[in-house]
């Protein structure tokens, strides 16, 4: 049993070594790919270190780009959650709102968040407001979906118990439905965080003068694939870190889930 584990670890390590080895070999080693097509891993690493303090060629350091993207994303994500979660819950709980809002919601739901970019750029210009608006919609839709489903999946038995003991409608909502919807709500927050992070990259690629999306889009114009790869690594890394923290928070908030 222990032997198998050792073999698996060796396999995992060798695959990463092989990956970087082949990457180095086809770039620096054998010069199959020119640095303007595929830079070597060493070049990418030095660019990463250099870009942290160097504002060239796109006018801002890596840190500044990260801060801009992150700030825009957080503002829009939080607003989407603040509006979306109560709205989704009300849609689920109150029949008139469900009947009236749900059709409108179903109307905009199939439209990917990115498709709103041109609308808001035309209406609000290429400033930060239009990017926030796009991300807000992406966050809003996901949060509504999940909080709606969260309230809906409350067990009927729990309502019956509540009613047997004479709970009012408000008590049923706050003490029965709301807590049982939390796992779904938290999943919604995590999922929308991911989609907002994706949308901010796309939005910055189309119209911005700062941010990670802008950085990689500019790097294409100046034939700097090393910066593009640095950008992709940073984007992926931040996405992973955000996901990690939200999973931690989720596990803490809904720790009652595990009986």
């Amino acid at each position: 049993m222990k032997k198998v584990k050792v073999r698996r670890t060796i396999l995992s390590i060798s695959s990463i070594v092989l990956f970087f080895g082949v990457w180095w070999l086809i770039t620096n080693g054998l010069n199959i790919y020119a640095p303007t097509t595929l830079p070597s891993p060493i070049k990418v690493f030095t660019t990463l270190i250099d870009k942290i303090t160097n504002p060239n060629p796109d006018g801002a350091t890596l840190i500044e780009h990260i801060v801009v993207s992150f700030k825009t994303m957080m503002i829009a994500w939080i607003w989407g959650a603040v509006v979306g979660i109560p709205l989704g819950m009300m849609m689920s709980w109150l029949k008139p709102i469900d009947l009236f809002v749900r059709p409108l919601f179903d109307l905009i739901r199939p439209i990917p968040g990115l498709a709103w970019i041109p609308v808001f750029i035309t209406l609000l210009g290429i400033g930060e407001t239009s990017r926030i608006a796009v991300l807000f919609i992406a966050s809003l839709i996901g949060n509504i979906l999940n909080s709606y489903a969260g309230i809906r999946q409350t067990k009927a038995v729990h309502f019956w118990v509540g009613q047997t003991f004479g709970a009012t409608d408000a008590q049923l909502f706050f003490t029965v439905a709301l807590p049982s919807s939390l796992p779904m709500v938290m999943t919604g927050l995590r999922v929308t965080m991911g989609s907002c992070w994706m949308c901010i990259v796309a939005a910055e690629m189309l119209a911005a003068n700062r941010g990670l999306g802008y950085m990689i889009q500019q790097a294409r114009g100046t034939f700097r694939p090393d910066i593009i790869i640095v950008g992709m690594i940073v984007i992926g890394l931040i996405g992973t870190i955000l996901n990690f923290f939200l999973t931690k928070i989720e596990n803490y908030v809904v720790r009652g889930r595990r009986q």
Partner: protein
Amino acid sequence: MRKFHSTKPMERLVWAIIAIACLMIAWYIGATKSELGIFPSPIEVLKRLLRAFSEPIGTMTIQMHILYSLSRVAVGVTLGSISGIVLGLFMGMNDDINAFVSPLFYIVRPIPTVAWIPLSIMWFGLGETTKYFLIFISSFTGCTIQAFSGVKSVDQTLIGAAKMLGASDFRVFHTIILPSCVPDICLGIQAALSSGWATVVAAEMVRSSEGVGWLIVAGQNNLDMEQILVGIVVIGCVGAVITTIASIIESRLCRWNNRSGV
């Protein structure tokens, strides 16, 4: 007794019509009365949409734009989901393969598809290959994970029983493992289709000369709000149709699966 509204379909439909009518009226009033002058009324958008079926926008009519985008999605999702499912099945069945592939997989997976756009344009130019590659990436990872977790959740007693009765590995695979993965794989393909549709819009928005993504970006460049809204309506409708078809196919396939599983 507290119950979730068990509304009759008729009542729902009536309310849906009322709600959408209210939205349209508000939109109409907002568009005609507003000082902005840039926002078209719903009637203008509808007229423009109908006209677009016979009159070309850019170089082609709207149905050709849709077909272009759909064909890109079809090629990319087919390649991505097939290779993703195959990889996921192998990773699920053989732990050595899993140990070898998963580190690389977890390096690549967190990078959102849109972040691949600049690099793929550098590698593959501005042609179709770039779009196929992007849609491939958007569908590949999801399908791999679904197929993998499908294999991992197969009932081990079934496999044990079959093996005890002398079934070969191949037979175990195609009579037990594969059928019980169908629901998971279906979920993966559904997700691949909707993310593929979103990706084609993004890819066409960044660089393209046809397709629905081009439609809305060209509208933005000409400050033509009508064209943007026509594009959005089309993107939403096609997206909804794709999701509906995929879920119908899924319910068919999984009904068969449930019946044979019992």
